[in-house]
């Protein structure tokens, strides 16, 4: 780990601030040295992205100044920042799906001969870059749209490495990567560091942050809450600093009683993604599903929710055959789905909280097709209170809420509908640590009231904290099931890999 350096910093931020309708970033002063990895940590809305966007030239600061090697630095655009060697890999993919990997890599500097695209030259330039991010065995001609999301992320990172790069900003680069890809990314970061490139690394995965970074800068409510050497901090310290208080202590998974069988799944199969999966969900149980990317968990959920039809297999819900042909039938039978993509698939963002909460049970707040706005507002107000949704009132648009409160709105919808079975796909993705524990507590409380839940999560600790039982899927099959108390991380991981070891090595990601 680097000692505090006395040489001139590569980048110096002095009193940087940004104000939209209110201040989102205030008085941030920070030095960054060549060959240093600085992690930016903080809850959503703490200002991490704003800070990195200012440095990357995507927005301008409202206050303060920046210096690169002592010279004033005020990029007017991303291009201007790139000319100074500051490159940025954004959280959202900005690739053009129909174009090839090579074309995406050199979008702004496509080589041409006689006005025609010089494919040979393009591929010669693309190949070394692709090798650096572990895509050496891919054809540079492959359209980016055909790649998995993780591979697309690697292309995005490779694009950040084109040309002169002195400062690389990575905004949540590992969010969608598999472990193998993440390892590749870390190798790449080590190499860049050795070359003297300064790196700003933004991630929610705090263990990752601690492993990778030299120093950790923590933002809270737009202000710098502290900058410390990574070696000197434990994950718990980082969390406390981010949230500004202790979290997690309040969560108590116990006190639940598991009842009789509610949903019985037998021999579910569809294509290669789901193969002969059988399990039973009990009343009041939280059943976790662990597995690697591509193990078939979301595909299984789609079958349970009627979004796809199984090729084979039967389900019995509350003693009756359950064969949903559409999400509508699933909901009618009492099975609700809470998707991973809250904003894209779950919520009506511009609409009011009340409208989102009552969406699946409008008939209960309506008379003869006419909505009773008072009843709707009452229902919304009650659930806002029960779930402690932090908002102005029930008329506030959902888009203005934080991720955690948005997730509570989705939960509230299904509580109002009174669905006995909740399917939750990555219920805390993108939600701040502090809010995560509130969601956990909420789910535990719901299970005490007799709701049954199936939870998919890529965060094994989350499952181990929350679930009564964890099923492990591997390559479309159920590779094992573990009861609380009878599990440990190693055996779950071993089960998760088992299918891949047996079947084949052609599984790409």
């Amino acid at each position, binding site marked *: 780990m680097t000692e505090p350096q006395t040489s001139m910093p590569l980048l110096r931020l002095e009193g940087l601030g940004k104000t939209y309708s209110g201040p989102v970033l205030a008085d941030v002063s920070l030095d960054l040295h060549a060959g240093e990895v600085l992690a930016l940590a903080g809850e959503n809305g703490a200002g991490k992205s704003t800070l990195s966007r200012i440095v990357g030239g995507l927005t301008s600061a409202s206050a303060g100044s920046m210096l690169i090697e002592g010279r004033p630095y005020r990029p007017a655009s991303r291009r201007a920042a790139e000319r100074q060697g500051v490159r940025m890999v954004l959280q959202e993919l900005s690739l053009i799906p129909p174009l090839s990997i090579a074309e995406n890599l050199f979008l702004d500097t496509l080589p041409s001969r006689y006005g025609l695209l010089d494919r040979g030259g393009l591929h010669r330039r693309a190949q070394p870059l692709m090798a650096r991010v572990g895509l050496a065995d891919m054809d540079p001609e492959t359209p980016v749209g055909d790649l998995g999301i993780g591979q697309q992320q690697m292309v995005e990172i490779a694009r950040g490495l084109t040309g002169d790069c002195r400062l690389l900003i990575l905004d949540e680069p590992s969010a969608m990567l598999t472990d193998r890809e993440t390892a590749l990314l870390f190798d790449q970061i080590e190499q860049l560091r050795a070359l003297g490139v300064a790196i700003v690394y933004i991630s929610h995965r705090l263990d990752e942050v601690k492993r990778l970074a030299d120093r950790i800068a923590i933002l809270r409510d737009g202000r710098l809450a502290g900058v410390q050497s990574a070696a000197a901090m434990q994950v718990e310290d980082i969390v406390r600093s981010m949230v500004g208080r202790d979290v997690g202590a309040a969560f108590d998974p116990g006190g639940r009683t598991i009842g009789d069988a509610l949903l019985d799944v037998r021999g579910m199969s569809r294509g290669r993604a789901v193969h002969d999966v059988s399990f039973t969900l009990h009343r009041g149980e939280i059943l976790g599903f662990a597995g690697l990317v591509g193990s078939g968990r979301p595909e299984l959920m789609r079958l349970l929710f009627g979004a796809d039809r199984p090729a084979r297999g039967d389900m019995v819900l509350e003693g009756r055959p359950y064969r949903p042909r559409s999400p509508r039938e699933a909901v009618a039978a009492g099975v609700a789905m809470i998707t991973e993509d809250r904003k894209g*698939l779950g919520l009506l963002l511009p609409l009011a909280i009340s409208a989102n909460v009552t969406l699946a049970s*409008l008939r*209960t707040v309506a008379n003869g097709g006419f909505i009773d706005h008072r009843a709707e507002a009452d229902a919304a107000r009650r659930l806002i209170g*029960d779930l402690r949704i932090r908002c102005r009132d029930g008329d506030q648009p959902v888009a203005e809420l934080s991720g955690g409160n948005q997730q509570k709105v989705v939960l509230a919808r299904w509580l109002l509908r009174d669905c006995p079975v909740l399917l939750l796909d990555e219920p805390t993705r993108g939600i701040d640590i502090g809010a995560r524990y509130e969601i956990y507590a909420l789910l535990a409380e719901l299970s005490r009231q007799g709701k049954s839940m199936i939870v998919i999560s890529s965060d094994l600790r989350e499952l181990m904290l929350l679930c009564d039982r964890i099923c492990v899927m591997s390559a479309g099959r159920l590779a094992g099931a573990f009861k609380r108390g009878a599990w440990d991380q190693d055996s779950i991981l071993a089960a998760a890999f088992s299918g891949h070891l047996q079947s084949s090595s052609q599984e790409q990601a």
Partner: protein
Amino acid sequence: MDAAPSSFPSSSPSPQPAAPRPGRSALTRYAGLLAALVAMCVLFGALSEHFLTAASFRTIANQIPALAVMAVGMTFVLIIGGIDLSVGSVLAFSGAVMSVAIVQWDLGLAAGIGLALVTGMVCGAFTGTISVSLRIPSFIVSLGMLEMARGGAYTATGSRTEYIGGNVSLITDPWVAGISPAFLLALIIVMMGHVLLNRTVFGRHLIGIGTNEEAMRLAGIDTHPPKILVFMLMGLLSAVGALFQVARMEAADPNAGVGMELSVIAAVVIGGTSLMGGRGSVLASFFGVLIIAVLESGLAQIGASEPTKRIITGIVIILAVVLDMYRSRAASRSS
């Protein structure tokens, strides 16, 4: 209702009672459109000595019913993220069927009107069903319907303007205080449209579909029937528009409503309804209709030349949308 968990520690104080509908933003919305309307009236009043007279406004009131009811339908279509380009042709076709039923088949006024309404609804049902169930953009399907219905109008009338006469004009003849029954009917339809959109489960579903159709599906709502219904409603209201127009002219013109889809869409967009779906207001669309009608009438009264009319109309459309954009941005910032 009784489904919600009650055993949660409800320690947190309940938020203040829900704000009264339709809420603050709605008021400012209509205020902006109203201001634009008043500004235009003042301007034309200054330019033409007879613009600010009761007769002038009576005339406008009796001219807008067709545009107004079609704007109601188009508001719904745009809210679900669709578009219907066939409305002008469907108007002509429905009017043609009505005239043929009355004049050639001698079926009488009531049956003629009934057939016209059915014609419009069938056209809308066709557009809606093809577009929704086969997932073809409504832009394309309604473009096809635009041609088909126009062809139908020519076929039905033999490309001739069909004179109806008789008591068909009762619908649009000035009635109380010079106002026609058609105008009152249009007002009622506008109010009903407003209630349908804002107060019913159906309306809520439409807004949801336009905002995020996939989320609606995952919430267990079958999104196809309401979408098809919206296109049927559009067809029906085009036929009502035809009824108003035919009654006013006492004749069905197979060329009626050429380019009318653009006036209707312009009125709705001036009212602030989003072409991207999910956001819109029937009342605001009605204000859009008024703005277009006042503009048209005012320009004719000052005797503006055809090129000038077109240039000014174009400017007003763009200006209205730009202002609306700034207004909604300002509103979202202040909240």
